[in-house]
């Protein structure tokens, strides 16, 4: 092997990507050629320097940085997820397979139409009221995700202070009833969103909540 043939192979040699026969041939040449040996040594020093540079130049994150980042991702990521679902709207197999009715349980009032097409209910302050979310599914669904986004001043009983609650659920074929006990804590009200997600499909249901 000659010096001319060695040069293009030095990178592969030092990166450990040369075949055994070529590697042996190159090593034999370098052992007897001072010029090529100095080139290989210089390339090796550069690699050693870059490896050391890599070890020295990335500052360690603060002790709690990962924990804080994960917590913030959960908080902001969930909000982003909610926005994406709402913007996605109704589509796909889930939309085709399901329908939802929101029916007053303990208390029911005839819906007032605040926005055309969006049902509404009226609640009294500090009085727990149960509403049944009724899903009709054309087929059984496993591992669906249900998320309820609450308007200001409305809480789910047992989840004080939370505006968003998510849980995994499975739906049977036919009617599925989810009782949801709500408490109005301030006279604000607004829109309650219930988003059902299964695989890549999602469907968001809207309900106007009025508080008196």
């Amino acid at each position, binding site marked *: 092997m000659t010096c001319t043939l060695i040069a293009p192979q030095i990178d592969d040699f030092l990166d450990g990507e040369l075949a055994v026969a070529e590697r042996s041939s190159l090593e034999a040449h370098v052992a007897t050629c001072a010029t090529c040996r100095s080139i290989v040594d210089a390339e090796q020093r550069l690699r050693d320097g870059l490896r050391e540079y890599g070890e020295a130049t990335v500052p360690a994150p603060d002790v709690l940085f990962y924990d804080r980042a994960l917590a913030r991702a959960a908080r902001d990521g969930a909000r982003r*997820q909610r926005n994406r679902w709402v913007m996605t709207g109704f589509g796909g197999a889930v939309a085709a397979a399901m329908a939802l009715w929101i029916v007053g349980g303990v208390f029911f009032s005839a819906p007032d139409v605040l926005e055309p097409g969006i049902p509404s209910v009226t609640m009294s302050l500090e009085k727990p009221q149960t509403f049944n979310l009724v899903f009709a599914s054309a087929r059984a669904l496993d591992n669906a995700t249900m998320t309820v986004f609450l308007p200001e001043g409305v809480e789910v009983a047992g989840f004080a202070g939370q505006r968003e609650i998510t849980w995994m659920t499975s739906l049977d074929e036919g009617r599925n009833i989810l009782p949801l006990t709500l408490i109005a804590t301030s006279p604000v009200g607004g829109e309650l969103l219930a988003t059902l997600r299964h695989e890549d499909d999602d469907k968001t249901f809207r309900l106007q909540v009025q508080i008196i």
Partner: protein
Amino acid sequence: MSPIDHQQRASFDALVRPHLDRLYRLSFRLAGNKPEAEDLFQDVLTKIYPRLNDLVDIEEPGSWLCRIMYNHFIDNRRRYARQRLVVISEQGLPGQNIEAIAGNLDPVVDSERLDNIMRLDAALSALSEEHRLVVLLHDSEGYKLNEIQEVTGVPVGTLKSRLHRARARLREILSADGTESAD
């Protein structure tokens, strides 16, 4: 946080946490400084949180996460670049952000090591962005070329060519400042 939210958060943590060190180092290599690296890192975690279902099905989540980070950085490079310009102007000379190295040899040797690292830092700053990235990922971070291809989408042949030219340019710069012999 409800038990359901807690479960989702716990699943996300369990899937992502083993890859955080690698992801953090990549964010630093892309952004070039700690404040912007932390922003990039945070942005990517927030972006993937709603995709927990996708993450569960990924065979190699580490590579997938790195690819998302790289693409996010490329898509938003103007924003990060704007931030970086401010920081560089505040930093002054290349190498200034290297505060110390782990010293386990004698002080003279450690001092030489620090000098070499700072010269290398200055030399790297003279490379184009694509050359600097490939040499940092391959030679400093230990990525294999096919792993860099997975992250960046650039073919191995192109990466190999960039790596060769980047190293040659580094040697040229280091030779000029007397750190390395020209050979």
